[in-house]
């Protein structure tokens, strides 16, 4: 589709959100390209939700530029929202309506004719595997089912861009995997997805590209693999020590890895060959309670960029 500056579906330049003297989003730049899954990874309070709310035309931009599907949220909110789907952080289904009514009523807000709404509701209930609960009330549904219904509702207008704010927060692992599978299929169909999350696993699984946010700013940008290559090593050796050994570690880990990160519960050694580093630990006669060699993740990228863990 022509007409998007730089072919970006969402384009932000020096995008800023302030609430009084508090700066929630501090002059960030990013481009979301059509048909990609774009992630905002960062801890709670990093400014992810404020950014999402500005894109979704739910919160006015304080400063800087923002273009969504080629339009300006300040003057064309209605037109933008007609082509957007939003899955909020906290479920906001209509608990006074049934599962099906939630979808059909929401369709009406988009001026979708009743017959079209009914057939779309059927398809979407099938897609999120809730067709058997179509006539049930919303309240007794499980957390995972409510999330899926919220996703179905966000798709009722066949949006070009779907925004997911912390889509799996609070879900058990099984519900989370089912949800990831649905998001993955959505992406296969060519939808553009924006996903915020503080789960690095989620970002790695779903996002083609992502930005890492911390304290209202973007601190890094790239594909999950690029970010890991740029900011971390291939492997990580995780060590846990007894209290006595911990106290006498001073300098004994020097030269074992490219970088050493000491966390309250464990010590991380960043190296391209974890097994070799572990052999060296044993050779130096350092007493470890447990040792684990794993591949680097986005969690390590975040740690290396900010010195803190994602989930605290």
């Amino acid at each position, binding site marked *: *589709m*022509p*007409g*998007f*500056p730089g072919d970006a579906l969402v384009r932000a330049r020096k995008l800023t959100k302030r*609430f009084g003297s508090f700066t929630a989003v501090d002059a960030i730049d990013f481009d979301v390209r059509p048909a990609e899954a774009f992630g905002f990874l960062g801890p709670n309070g990093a400014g992810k939700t404020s950014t999402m709310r500005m894109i*979704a035309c*739910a*919160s*006015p931009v304080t400063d800087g530029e923002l*273009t969504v*599907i*080629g*339009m*300006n949220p300040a*003057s*064309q*909110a*209605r*037109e933008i*929202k*007609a082509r*957007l789907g*939003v899955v*909020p952080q*906290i*479920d*906001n*289904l*209509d*608990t*006074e*309506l049934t599962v099906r*009514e939630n979808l059909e*009523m*929401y369709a*009406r*807000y*988009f*001026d979708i004719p009743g017959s079209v709404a009914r057939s779309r509701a059927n398809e979407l209930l099938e897609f999120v595997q809730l067709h058997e609960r179509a006539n049930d009330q919303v309240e007794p549904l499980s957390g995972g089912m409510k999330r899926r219904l919220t996703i179905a*509702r*966000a798709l009722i*207008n066949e949006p070009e861009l779907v925004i997911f704010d912390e889509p799996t927060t609070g879900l058990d692992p099984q519900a989370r995997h089912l949800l990831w599978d649905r998001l993955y299929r959505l992406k296969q169909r060519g939808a553009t997805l924006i996903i915020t999350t503080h789960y690095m696993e989620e970002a790695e699984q779903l996002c083609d590209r992502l930005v890492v946010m911390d304290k209202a700013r973007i601190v890094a940008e790239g594909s999950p693999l690029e970010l890991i290559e740029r900011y971390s090593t291939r492997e990580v050796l995780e060590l846990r020590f007894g209290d006595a050994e911990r106290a006498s570690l001073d300098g004994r880990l020097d030269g074992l890895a490219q970088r050493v990160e000491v966390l309250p519960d464990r010590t991380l050694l960043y190296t391209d060959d974890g097994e070799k580093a572990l052999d060296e630990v044993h050779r130096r006669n350092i007493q470890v309670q447990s040792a684990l060699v794993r591949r680097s993740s986005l969690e390590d990228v975040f740690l290396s960029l900010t010195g803190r863990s994602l989930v605290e």
Partner: protein
Amino acid sequence: MSAATAPPAKRSFANSLRPATHLFHRNWLVYKRIWYRSLFFGFLQPFMFLAAMGLGIGGLLARTNPGAFGSVGYISFLGPGLLGATVMQTASFESTYPIMNKIMWGRNYEAILASPLSTRNVVIGELAWIGFRIASISTIFLGVLAIFGITRSPLALLAIPVATLMGLGFSSCLIAFAATQTNDIGFSWVYRFLINPLFLFSGTFFPLTQMPQPVQVAAWMTPLFHGVRLIRGLILGTLDLRAAPWHLGYLLAFFAIGLILADRSLARRLAS
């Protein structure tokens, strides 16, 4: 022409109406499951009130103090006043807890505002719905008054739009207030110090001339007083044509101010 160069839509009042009907429809979808119950109580409540107070207390008054309420008797004085007071109470309730629920407990408005609807559409849609509710309550109430033989003029039918206008004034002001609140404690203050005193001291149960001068002046400034004056005049056929435009003007201004406040307040709360 690409979307990038499309002109921004006009944000006129008229453009706010069509999307607002969707909100009305949503409320109807919920209400239609209980409408018969709601209408039954809408009938039962005034029926019992008028039977107890109108015939009971009114009967007593007629014996001890005949002529205190002129030829019409106490029940005819009470009936129209009670209609106004009931509309005020219903409008107030509908504009406090349910609105707060949709703002913060159930977060309905967050979902609705993610669709093309704006906060202005929401305000107009909710007021249209509440207007419909109080108009239907007024209609039933008027029917009960007719059963008791209280209605004395065909103009009585005009009491329905007047009561609805007054109710919408309360409704819009309270929606504006509800949108500033972060819990429901403020509502109990509104009921204790605003709605209940109005209910008692706005010429509903007795003529205000019974009260000391300052109370009369205070009552004169309240919307319920003006609403009840108009409603009573229309139902009993005793409308004071010189005063009527002022009462009506007051109610129109009350609603207009409420509408502006509600529009601003909801936008500040939900789109900041």
